[in-house]
């Protein structure tokens, strides 16, 4: 299968790799450049575990044709923490017990980050809408909603993180 070179920014650092024709971005992030934070749940667009930000917008990396990120900026959970310090959203998830098995958490965090970047003071309804494409089979969602609202209340969740 023909391979194509692709260059993009991942959490602020330049990446250059080769992708197969038709390969999805989730696969390239996990196997090509070794970022294991976006999760593989369904490859169908239904679970949201693979959510990443592309130029600040939430996208399902399993449904993104990898070569389309040429020259663009991709952000994943790997770029959220700053050294030993967790991102305010991650702190709020911890405090609210918003992760049980944790499989949905990277997607939830990125969906929440996309929301807070545009809308730093969302209502509960807006939070529910923002994570409506993300499935959690453990928490019943309430803890996740509470965590996102709490992080928004702290006012510092939007801009933190690289990329």
């Amino acid at each position, binding site marked *: *299968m*023909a391979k*194509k070179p692709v260059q993009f920014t991942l959490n602020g650092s330049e990446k250059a790799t080769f992708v*197969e*024709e*038709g390969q*999805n971005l989730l696969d390239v992030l996990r196997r090509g450049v070794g970022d294991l934070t976006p999760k593989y749940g369904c*490859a*169908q*667009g239904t679970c*949201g575990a693979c*959510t990443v930000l*592309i130029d600040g*917008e*939430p*996208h*399902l990396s*399993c*449904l*993104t*044709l990898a*070569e*389309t990120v040429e020259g663009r900026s991709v952000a994943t959970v790997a770029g959220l923490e700053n050294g030993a310090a967790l991102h305010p959203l991650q702190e709020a998830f911890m405090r609210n017990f918003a992760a049980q098995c944790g499989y949905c958490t990277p997607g939830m965090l990125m*969906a929440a980050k*996309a*929301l807070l970047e545009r809308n730093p003071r969302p209502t509960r309804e807006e939070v*529910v*809408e*923002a*994570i*409506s*494409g*993300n499935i959690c089979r453990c928490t019943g969602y309430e803890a996740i909603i509470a965590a996102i609202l709490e992080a928004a209340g702290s006012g510092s969740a939007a801009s933190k993180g690289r990329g």
Partner: protein
Amino acid sequence: MPVHVETHANISDAARALSSARDGRFFGGGTLLMRALNEADQSIGTIVRCTDPVLRQVRSEGDRIAIGAGVTMAEIMANRDLAFLAPVARIIGGPAVRSAATVGGNLFAEPPYGDFTTALLALDASVRFAGESGQSTPLQDFLRDRANRRGRVVESVMVPRITDPKALRFVKVTRVKPKGAALMSIAAWLPGSGGRGCRIAYGNMAPTPVRAAAAERALEGASLSEQGIARALQAATEGLTPPTDMFASEWYRREVAPVHLKRLLLGQGQ
């Protein structure tokens, strides 16, 4: 069979490539095509992409608006001139679907999808293929023969300019909240006073979105009151054979269509 992906900067080149490609598919936002590729769908041989800005434009053309086929649901929601379509775009998937899903891709979406196209059908929209400058195909004709249109690139969709957002009403009926696939969607465009000139379209009541012609006829000249719409409700599914699938049975669809149509026409909360 490995898939081949080619990218063109110009829409005429993309149209030529698609028409001559072996098992070619045009790439919109990829939310449906990538699913197929992830499942190793063997029917796709070539993916044709196009970066021509014309696909992303929203332009005025007299009393119509031309929406580029590559415009995403998120972009529809952010465009003031398209405020009347924002409530429809908003119900398509979650935010991460909407930042990729395009208007052009929705035209080809099979059930249970195609909600945006249902609204376009109620708006009497028309479809312009690449290379056609003045002319366009009525959406209804396009949908009738949709399977045979895959070899052509849709450049844009033409809709009337609507200033009163209440003139277009839309409901997506789902069993899973907050988001689930529609067992039925209904769009009604009420351009005049009462039911005059109204257009009603259903999604997921047939293999493609369809107009509720009998209900439209019954509404002509009627007032939008319980009494005025009674005949239209009786005719809600006349001439249609709704499917039985994993979302609902034919019987259920026939039973609930008039209920949802009534709420929509009377402006009662859905």
